[in-house]
């Protein structure tokens, strides 16, 4: 999870300081620079993780520490090459990264790429649906709160937003499960699909791992319904947390733009208040909002651990925690590298979206 940044981070690309003001070519170049920045980001993260992980122990101790004596452990460690100097191991790893060989996990003996392909889609799907909830709830309520600022309605929304954010995810998830699964029996307790649907989807020749798509591929409405019903509670749990953040973000920024001269100018031309809010104030406010939302999405991808645990949603975050616990260096490094790519790419995409909203950048 991350801080709720209501303030557009001045260091982020949308802030005027780092954004080229205008001029064709400048923007393309800027994007190129942003794109190239992905690589040092990955490199730094992987390096950081590499050394941090070596400080925390090794997978062999993690797995066998309760069964083997020190001598045997040492022997196994030597066999696995963990007794070599860390720098040697590091350069070896980096060397392999360069040829895009992310290695094989120690604990489950699966290629890291495969791990990413299995769990990435799960996280992606969860984040996707949560964002739908977050957007559907956060933005309209944020607009309403801005419009009714400092009225009781605004206060209600704001307290709600903070509340969503303050309740620990695992606790909120538990309560939702009790209400909607146990008492009302509307939704399943946890998991991504029922056993029957899972087995049916298993038979698909090329599974995507995104259950919604897989369910549609089976063409069985029961499976589709089943998969969707599994999405509801986790999406709401994670979605509301994010919605709280969006709500506050939209509110602050829209109130800001509502007091600008151009909104006053539009008002002086007789434009309706509701239209002022939805069009004249909202659109410009979107630029800083989008930037923070972009960061938020990136953080969601790696930060959904608690939701994933609570709802049996085996995604990257959960898996990463698991690998961490087992000190599976290779897997952790691989997943972190992927997350870094996702974060960097998201930021990159957000820049492009922001540019489309903000003509000052586009032209």
């Amino acid at each position, binding site marked *: *999870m*991350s*801080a*709720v*940044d*209501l*303030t557009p*981070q*001045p*260091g982020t690309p949308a802030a005027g*300081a780092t954004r080229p003001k205008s001029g064709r070519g400048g923007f393309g170049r800027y994007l190129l620079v942003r794109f190239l*920045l992905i690589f040092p*980001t990955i490199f*730094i*993260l992987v390096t*950081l*993780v590499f050394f*941090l*992980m070596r*400080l*925390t*122990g090794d997978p062999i101790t993690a797995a066998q520490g309760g069964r083997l004596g020190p001598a045997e452990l040492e022997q196994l460690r030597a066999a696995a090459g963990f007794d070599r100097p860390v720098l040697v191991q590091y350069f070896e790893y980096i060397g392999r990264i360069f040829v895009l060989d992310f290695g094989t996990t120690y604990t489950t003996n699966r290629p890291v790429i495969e791990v990413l392909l299995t769990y990435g889609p799960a996280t992606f799907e969860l984040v996707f649906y949560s964002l739908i909830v977050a957007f559907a709830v956060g933005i309209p309520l944020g607009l309403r709160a801005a419009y009714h*600022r*400092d*009225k*009781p309605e*605004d*206060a209600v929304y*704001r307290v709600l937003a*903070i509340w969503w*954010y*303050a*309740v*620990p*995810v*695992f*606790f909120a998830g*538990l*309560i939702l499960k*009790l209400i909607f699964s*146990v008492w009302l029996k509307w939704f399943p307790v946890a998991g991504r699909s029922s056993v029957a649907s899972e087995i049916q989807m298993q038979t698909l020749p090329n599974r995507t791992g995104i259950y919604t798509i897989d369910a549609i591929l089976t063409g069985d409405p029961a499976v589709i319904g089943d998969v969707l019903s599994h999405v509801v509670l986790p999406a709401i749990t994670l979605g509301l947390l994010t919605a709280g953040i969006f709500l506050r973000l939209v509110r*602050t*920024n829209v*109130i*800001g733009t509502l007091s600008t001269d151009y909104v006053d100018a539009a008002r002086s031309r007789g434009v309706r208040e509701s239209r002022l809010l939805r069009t004249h104030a909202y659109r410009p*406010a979107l630029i800083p909002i989008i930037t923070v939302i972009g*960061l938020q999405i*990136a953080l969601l991808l*790696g*930060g959904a*651990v*608690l939701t994933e645990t609570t709802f049996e949603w085996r995604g990257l*975050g959960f898996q*990463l*925690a698991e690998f*961490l616990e087992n000190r599976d260096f290779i897997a952790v490094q691989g997943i972190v590298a992927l*997350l*870094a790519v996702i*974060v*960097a790419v998201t930021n990159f995409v957000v820049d492009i979206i922001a540019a489309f909203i903000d003509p000052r950048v586009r032209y």
Partner: protein
Amino acid sequence: MTATTPVATMAPQKRRLVDRLPVVHQLRQSVGLQRGMLVAGLVMIAVFVLSAAFAPLIAPFGFAQRSVDGESFGTQQPPSAEHWFGTTVGGYDVFSRVIWGTQTTLLVVVVALVLSIFIGVALGLYAGYFGGWLDRVLVVVCDAIYAFPSLLLAIVLSIVISGGQSNLWGGVLAAAASITVIYIPQYFRVIRAEVVRIKAEAYVESAKVLGASNSRIIFRHVFRNSTRTLPLIITLNSSEAILTLTALGFLGFGIEPTAAAEWGYDLSKAQSDVTSGIWWTAVFPGLAIVFTVLGITLVGESLNDLADPRLRGRRRVAQAAGQVAETSVVPGGTLTAGPGGIDGLEGGDSIEQHGIEVRP
């Protein structure tokens, strides 16, 4: 009124004292609902801090106490006269642990904030002011850390820092330090951005023109002016620290229950209680978390709103004409302009005097 009378020179200083106390000043400024929210938040924080300070007096039992006079409390006892909030699966008194939990939480928040502010601000000042390759490297590194899922970073760090140990200080330091590492980039970003902005301000340039040394410029001119956004971030990060601590507790990296009371730990231990109809072991620590985060966030949000003149609400003037003194005028041309006569008029940037400013 002439400027040379003592009254005239005293007046601004008096206001200054109050102005300088960040929250008090904002409290005085606020009106209506905004004040209501700020006050509510402050009250909640006060309750939290007071509970922490007077935990030994408030809590009927120790946080690791399982029995009194050799008589065990019993586990998972429902709320009763002896145990207002019941007892936990470990046989502790829930009420006492909720109260003692404030101490742990406060400790973590304070340590985390102190560490991240010091380091983050120092780095931000340095990088923002001098720029250059170090700045670029720091920016990229901080962005990279930002991309790392913070909770997992906290886990790794808690392992590295305390060797996975969870006595009180080990646990507190691990949680705090891991939170620190996550927040340093944030403080860094914010301070750096402020510094970059302030560096271009005329008063810094004027100091440069005077030939002041870099360290003098940084400390005398840049530093204090670049900390305006801190109160807001501090509140945000306090909430985050609490939630991170909670999550660490949930994932098993919490603080050992006989070393300190910690809400997240209690809450995670109460998971299976809830599904078994034992609500009291989870609800109270859960509410304590929500209450505290709510309080801190309310204050943070209110400070944010109050700092921005556009977001700040003001008391309505009831009577339109007549009664109001004519303070509206700049006695422009005269050399002996009355004191305070032009407050807040020129340039529209009277926000300079407030604690923080956040431009949406």
